[in-house]
């Protein structure tokens, strides 16, 4: 019978990992710092998407735009709020731990893939069915077709992450084997491939080619997660970690100031390019440097409760936060509520209430649909 993939329990590390793993691993096999980071990143994503939402109603219908796009002050902020590399890093840490544990009790790669598919795809199927039914009901109720199309497009935007995360998760057994056989060579190959894709797509003006980096960039960050799980980052000295972070940021400054890449890290997300690896490297070094302090924070009872609650509903929150955002906006507009002029004093003042409203609406949604995680 195919082995059951455990989600808890002690970790049996590969020999290479055992040699370098420090006292960072939780007895359950989970790293509380990584769980904390993943929950915090999800909060950042929800808040940023909520802040980005801009809606105007003109004579020709509803117009939706990114409220913070093209704001010069937002460019440096994007270096801080671009947390997608951390998501893939955290995913790498969790998946290598889970796969090595499962493998040690006889699980086959297919068993692991099956468990990841079920974990990631079923909540998405539930969301598809619910939102499809909603679209159907709105169409029958006579909602304007153009508005529904725009709303549907917006609600589908976060799905890029699910597709890529599913792809990288399915490849975990293969990527872990490559990491265990030749960690440095595997990382070098992925980073080189990402750089080559950037070079070729820029040289030959084929932007679509850049989408190949959905694999190379995010698999490289997954590898960084494997290195983190091995304890490689944590076994560096504080000075080495600070130097690593500084060097990554310096490289990022160089490639953006020289105009090789956009300095807007949200623009660099689609398709991903090498700047996200530099952001990810800086974040990983800083995460390892701040590890002891973050570990203390993660022990706080309230923090632990929040992290557990968010972590247990992460897929639901991710899948549903934009639909919730869109539905609240639609209800507000239908009720005749005026949308403040973006970047006005009133707009900034109301953002806190807007974020609170979206968070409050997400709670019952996460509670209800979260049962399918």
């Amino acid at each position, binding site marked *: 019978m*195919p082995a059951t993939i455990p989600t808890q329990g002690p970790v049996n590390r590969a020999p290479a990992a055992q040699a370098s793993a420090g006292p960072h691993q939780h007895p359950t096999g989970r790293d509380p710092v990584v769980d904390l980071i993943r929950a915090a990143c999800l909060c950042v994503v929800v808040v940023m998407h909520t802040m980005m939402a801009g809606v105007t109603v003109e004579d020709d219908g509803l117009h939706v735009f990114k409220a913070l796009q093209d704001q010069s002050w937002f460019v440096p902020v994007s270096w801080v709020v671009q947390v997608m590399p951390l998501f893939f890093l955290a995913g790498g840490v969790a998946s290598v731990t889970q796969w090595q544990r499962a493998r040690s009790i006889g699980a086959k790669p297919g068993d692991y893939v*099956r468990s990841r*598919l079920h974990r990631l795809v*079923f909540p998405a*199927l539930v969301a598809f069915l619910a939102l499809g039914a909603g679209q159907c009901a709105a169409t029958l109720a006579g909602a304007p077709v153009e508005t529904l199309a725009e709303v549907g497009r917006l609600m589908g935007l976060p799905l890029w992450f699910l597709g890529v995360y599913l792809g990288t998760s399915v490849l975990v057994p293969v990527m872990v084997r490559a990491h265990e056989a030749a960690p440095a060579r595997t990382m070098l190959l992925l980073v080189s491939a990402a750089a080559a894709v950037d070079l070729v797509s820029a040289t030959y003006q084929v932007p679509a080619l850049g989408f190949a980096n959905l694999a190379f960039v995010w698999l490289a960050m997954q590898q960084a997660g494997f290195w983190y799980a091995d304890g490689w980052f944590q076994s560096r000295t504080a000075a080495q970690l600070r130097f690593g972070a500084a060097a990554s940021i310096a490289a990022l400054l160089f490639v953006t100031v020289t105009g090789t890449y956009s300095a807007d890290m949200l623009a660099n997300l689609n398709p991903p390019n090498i700047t996200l690896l530099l952001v990810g490297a800086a974040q990983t070094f800083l995460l390892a440097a701040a590890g002891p302090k973050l570990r203390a924070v993660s022990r706080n009872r309230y923090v632990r409760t929040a992290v557990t609650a968010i972590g247990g509903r992460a897929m639901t929150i991710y899948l549903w936060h934009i639909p919730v955002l869109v539905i609240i906006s639609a209800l507000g507009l239908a009720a005749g509520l005026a949308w403040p002029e973006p970047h006005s004093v009133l707009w900034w003042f109301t953002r806190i209430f807007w974020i609170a409203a979206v968070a409050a609406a997400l709670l019952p949604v996460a509670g209800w649909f979260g049962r399918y995680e």
Partner: protein
Amino acid sequence: MVTARPEPMTTLRTVIVTVAAIGGITVVLIDGYSLGSTAIGATALALALAASGFRFRRQYS
């Protein structure tokens, strides 16, 4: 009680269900939650889950 054992996930089956799942997600990503794309996407996800041995009752009962 005898429960049905899931079929082993061969490499070919793994590739097929992964492509179906990512394909279903991509259709909705590209076209949004329109009626047509949502139906296609949901069908692809459901088929991927079924082919990978997903059983709702076993998972959630």
